[in-house]
């Protein structure tokens, strides 16, 4: 493959900021020793052995479980929303997308923090609940709060790719289906849904990956009670200083995500791909 001269800066960039760090993580994951002193490094797979013990597997299981649920919820909420927006006139459509994106301009931490005041025991939601004469609910610092935080933060990543695929669907295909006597449900099932698969797959990837590795949401909304794999990795790097174990956990998580992606892209095989697909 011939490369233009203009592409060299990008290759350099990718080398320095993507390839080398990846190899560094791989290198750390298969060694042990004092993280700061390279002369003490010894080849060892102990880190991986340590990971495959019930404690860490349980944490991984919990992270995957929460990420899957939040991806499914995002899909259920996001698809109709993308549909509704894509059917509007172009001006209103752009307006709606803008309204959808504006909150994302605000810092992610701030948006997550805002839920603290909404969900707290004396928060806004419980204020209304008690005014209506019910017992205050326990909304904060549990797995449901973490799930809510994930869905809230990652929903736009589901809606936007699906939306961008939906608006590109050739209207004449839908008209043809209607002319041939298909009802609304049939048009959706046989035409719109299959054509939007690439968008759905991109959406799933873009929600699942950040959700499975998040540590901020579980910290702020889970009160550190619902440790996810991201928290354990963070703990190894920031508190314990064991970069080797932290790196091997990251590698395992990466392999896990790769496998998931391979499975999801299977569904996309017989389609043309394209149309906003990431893989």
């Amino acid at each position, binding site marked *: 493959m011939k490369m233009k001269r203009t592409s060299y800066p990008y290759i350099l960039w990718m080398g320095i900021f993507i390839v080398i760090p990846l190899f560094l993580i791989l290198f750390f994951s298969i060694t042990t020793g004092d*993280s*700061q002193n390279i002369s003490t490094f010894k080849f060892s797979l102990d880190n991986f052995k340590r990971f495959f013990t019930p*404690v*860490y597997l*349980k*944490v991984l299981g*919990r992270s995957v479980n929460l990420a899957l649920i939040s991806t499914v919820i995002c899909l259920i909420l996001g698809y109709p929303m993308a549909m509704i927006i894509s059917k509007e006139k172009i001006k209103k459509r752009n307006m709606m997308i803008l309204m959808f994106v504006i909150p994302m301009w605000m810092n992610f931490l701030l948006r997550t923090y805002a839920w603290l005041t909404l969900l*707290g*025991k*004396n928060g806004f939601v419980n204020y209304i609940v008690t005014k209506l004469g019910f017992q205050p609910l*326990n909304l*904060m*610092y549990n797995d449901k709060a973490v799930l809510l935080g994930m869905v809230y933060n990652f929903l736009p990543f589901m809606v936007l790719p699906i939306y961008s695929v939906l608006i590109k669907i050739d209207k004449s295909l839908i008209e043809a289906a209607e002319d041939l006597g298909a009802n609304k449900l049939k048009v959706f099932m046989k035409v719109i849904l299959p054509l939007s698969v690439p968008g759905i797959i991109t959406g799933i990837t873009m929600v699942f990956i950040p959700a499975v590795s998040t540590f901020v949401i579980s910290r702020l909304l*889970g*009160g*550190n*009670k*619902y*440790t996810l794999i991201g*928290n*354990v990795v963070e*703990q190894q*790097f*920031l*508190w*314990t*200083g*064991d970069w080797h174990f932290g790196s091997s956990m990251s590698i395992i998580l990466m392999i896990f995500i790769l496998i998931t992606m391979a499975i999801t892209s299977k569904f996309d095989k017989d389609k043309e791909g394209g149309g906003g697909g990431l893989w």
Partner: protein
Amino acid sequence: MKRIKSIVLLLLVLIMGTMATGCGDKRPTINVYNWGDYIDTSIIKDFEEEYNIKVNYSTFATNEDMYVKLKQGGTSYDVLFPSDYMIERMISEDMLVKLDKNNISNIKNVEEKFLGLDFDPNDEYSVPYMWGTVGIIYNKKMVDDKVDSWDILWNEKYKNQIIMLYSQRDSIAVALKKLGYSMNTRDIKELEEAKQELINQKPLVYAYLGDEVKDVMIGGEAALAVVWSGDAVAMIRENPDLEYAIPKEGTNLWFDNMVIPKSTKNKEVAEKFINFMCRPDIAAKNADYIGYSTPIPEAVKLLPEDIRNSKVAYPENEKIENTEIFKDPKDIIQVYDKIWTDVTSEQ
């Protein structure tokens, strides 16, 4: 296209602008690394103005956090505020420089009993900053039992109303004390028992928090919390329903001292800073603001009456007889890490 160009231009101007201001500051600079919410920031401004020095101030959440950051290098810090056992570890690992006492004349203001403590017996490396205890803060409106024992944190009645510290050393110490063991135990069996206690307690815990605990307790969102005494002072000031108790099984007596790490680039200025913090009027201003207890008697005299007479910040001597000062766990630090990972991963 034009718009893109103007945006790029604007960005460039911004970047150049920030770089230019960065270079323009000719004052000597020190990097101060302190616990979050642990200083009256106007004091930093006072210091900058008085000595014409620039202070870069950043914060950490726990001793372990600070230690790892320092070990990993990258940033050179000039003044740190670690606690007792961490100072012991840093001295033994040769991470600190000896202080020149001639530059820190204000150390004469520090009360005798805070000097020459076990972690730095000759006061060669550290100067006291604040001290205090660990105890239970509770909301009188929500707790009707007598709070005088760690056991209350395991009481089913307060399910989902208990807040523990998100700090491995402190939380494990609470469990050890509840079991009647020393919080400096090196007996793995006792530590394992403590771990089991913490796991048993987990279903009752509302959250494991750091500094956020203040907002939660002031807002009356939880009934009981394990806190450091200085934070308790600050919380009680905001919400008079709160009260602080030191459990009868005994607790941790801690000291946060100022030290200068080996990575310092400006030791003399760092010593000036430490000296400044020990000046009675500054120490008083600081202690008044953050609520923690200053080791400088002259400063205590300058404090407003409610804090000066506060039994939370300045307990009677017999109250703190039954306390222990943390020691560095040294070789069994991995056991602590492992216990804490197990506890936080449990569900």
